[in-house]
């Protein structure tokens, strides 16, 4: 793709700028970026396939572990699809509780992002401050659900835990603290000179490019595209709550920062409303073990953008197919575009600005490159035999040890 004389620097799969393994091969001329090659696939865990081997209830907990940050997003999205196939009418109280957890999760995700962004531009003070304040919302989540991440709140047909009066009071108290802190962060992010210098004009993605590359979430909204599933295709209790879809016209990393910190304020508003209007009623409806034949697509506005789940059932207690389209997959192509003609120093913040979650995104990738002639697919037995042979060539022989182990197992 590029001239071999170019300086090619690998950012990842292991690199301090990245919190997860992902390969970026950056072609450089001095400090200028000529082009970026992105390589997914270092973090594939086979969750979609594993979901086919488990029952629907087991799948909720599996799919919750797609992402460590937006775990509630994925499980809600999956549960919504299953409920649609089964034709379940979820109690309104359960929908409200899902909404509250979803917004608390958005708060913790955005605060986390703010810290990471600060770290990427060498402003560790912001990291320390925002992560300290993130503890407030983490404590609240732990108090309601019992866990700091992977809340296990959802079940098919409702939620598993209630929010009582004491918890409501605690949440409201925490929101007051967070609101005050967020106002301070808005001030810092929009007024501190060095932050603005590093953020504005960096990683520009025009409105047209957003539409062409199908970016989602805050990345799209920062370019003035009003794209938010909560408003466009309301799920859970969002149809009954009033909130603003935050957009910004800067179209750069600065815009994305502004969108995220302002969205925090909207989240506080949503939670306050939801807590105030929390209707009484049951938490779940009874769901059948075997889900009838059918298929459904469910959309959900995760903190990073639109999350899409597709579920196909075949009348048994296990799904036939589960497909997950995490928001990062939609955004990652835009990164390549944003980095064109930028400096190497902008690379970490531009990548971080889409709030990437690579392990959510990773799917099986078959590499078929010209320079990869040795690549072939071999079966398990051949691989096993090959590994024994390979170790023997290195002078390591496990035959004796294996015999001992076998004897021990027998004896």
């Amino acid at each position, binding site marked *: 793709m590029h001239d071999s004389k170019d300086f090619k620097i690998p950012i990842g799969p292991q690199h301090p700028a990245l919190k997860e393994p992902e390969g970026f091969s950056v072609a450089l001329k001095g400090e200028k970026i000529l082009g970026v090659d992105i390589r997914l696939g270092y973090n594939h865990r086979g969750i979609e396939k594993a979901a086919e081997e488990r029952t629907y209830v087991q799948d909720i907990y599996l799919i919750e572990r797609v992402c460590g940050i937006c775990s509630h997003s994925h499980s809600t999205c999956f549960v919504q699809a299953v409920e649609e196939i089964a034709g379940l009418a979820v109690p309104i109280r359960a929908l409200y509780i899902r909404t509250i957890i979803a917004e608390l999760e958005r708060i913790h995700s955005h605060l986390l992002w703010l810290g990471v962004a600060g770290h990427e531009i*060498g402003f560790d003070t912001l990291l320390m401050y925002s992560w300290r304040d993130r503890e407030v919302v983490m404590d609240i989540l732990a108090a309601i659900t019992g866990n700091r991440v992977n809340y296990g709140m959802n079940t098919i047909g409702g939620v598993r835990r209630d929010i009582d009066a004491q918890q409501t009071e605690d949440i409201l108290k925490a929101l007051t603290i967070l609101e005050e802190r967020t106002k301070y962060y808005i001030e810092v992010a929009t007024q501190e000179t*060095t932050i603005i210098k590093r953020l504005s004009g960096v990683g520009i993605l025009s409105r047209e490019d957003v539409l062409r590359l199908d970016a989602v979430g805050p990345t799209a909204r920062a370019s003035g595209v009003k794209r938010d599933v909560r408003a466009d295709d309301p799920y859970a209790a969002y149809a009954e709550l009033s909130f603003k879809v935050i957009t910004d016209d800067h179209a750069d990393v600065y815009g994305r920062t502004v969108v995220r910190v302002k969205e925090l304020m909207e989240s506080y508003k949503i939670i306050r409303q939801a807590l105030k209007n929390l209707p009484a009623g049951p938490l779940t409806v009874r769901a059948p073990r075997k889900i009838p034949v059918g298929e459904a697509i469910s959309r959900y506005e995760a903190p990073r953008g639109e999350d899409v789940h597709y579920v196909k059932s075949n009348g048994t207690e296990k799904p036939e197919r589960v497909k997950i389209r995490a928001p990062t997959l939609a955004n990652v192509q835009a990164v390549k575009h944003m980095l064109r003609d930028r400096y190497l120093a902008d690379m970490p913040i531009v990548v971080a600005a889409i709030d990437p979650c690579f392990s959510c995104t990773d799917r099986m990738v078959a590499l078929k490159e010209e320079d990869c002639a040795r690549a072939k697919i071999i079966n398990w037995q051949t691989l096993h035999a090959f590994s024994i042979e390979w170790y023997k060539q290195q002078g390591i022989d496990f035959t004796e040890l294996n015999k001992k182990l076998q004897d021990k197992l027998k004896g």
Partner: protein
Amino acid sequence: MLGALFYILIFPGFLFLVFSGLTAEFIDRKIYARLQNRVGPPWFQAYADFIKLLAKEDIVPAESNPKMFRVAPVFALTAAITAFLYIPLWGKEALLSFNGDVIIVLYLLTLPTLAFFIGGWYSTSLYSRLGAVRSLMQLFAYEVPLFMGILASALLADTWSLKEMVIFYTAHPWFWMFNLTGFAISLVSLLGKLEKVPFDIPEAETEVVAGGFTEYSGRMLAYLRLTLDVEMVVGSSLLALVFFPFGLNLGPLPGFLLFLFKVLFILGLISLLRTVVARLRIDQMVNFCWKYLVPLALLQILLNLILKGTLLR
């Protein structure tokens, strides 16, 4: 002979500088941590890190030039320590002194950066080379305002010798007040020399891992880090002497305490500055130095020339 060895190896030479450098690192890290709402390291952390690194394996990359790779850290440390011998800590006398030692101190303080470049360049790793080139590029940006800031003060005293400067400022007690702009300029430039935020561009970990230091490990990494610590002490001592030259005739003990206080003040300022800003990009850094710091330094020199023509006539 024995006396000279004592001066060079123990006080105020190698041993004293190692201890004060590591202590300075602790103070810097502690202030940084407290300002960020963290607990921060215990007092022995810097020593523990240093000793641990000394005990670790030295790895020399196969592709590197082993001689240059090994020499660079020692060279850097030696230069930084030598610079300290020319700085009067209290009173008017430094260990070594001659007419023109301001230039020598500044020159010796430039050498570590060059050594970082050489070490990084000869590690041949991609990140090291990028970091090395960045540190050299940064050198051209901050070095000029730093020299101008410090030499403006010397200009007012009409000498190139630190000793003569001390004598002049003791004779004209309040004249250091005129050099405060120069102090601000030099302090900001010093951040570039010490590779601290906002000028930690050569070792920006999210971009170039550890820059020129990436391939270093064990003892040689310990020396490189010690060099930066020693530079911090030498740099702040130099600034303390040049810009706050008061109370230098108090005698050894009070003089030394006052000197410590001045150095601590400058260290605190360095920590504070690096807490409240984000890292700049290399082009922004070069722009900032040449657009704002250099013209300011020129103004300082102009002011000092006018002062010389009027008040000191």
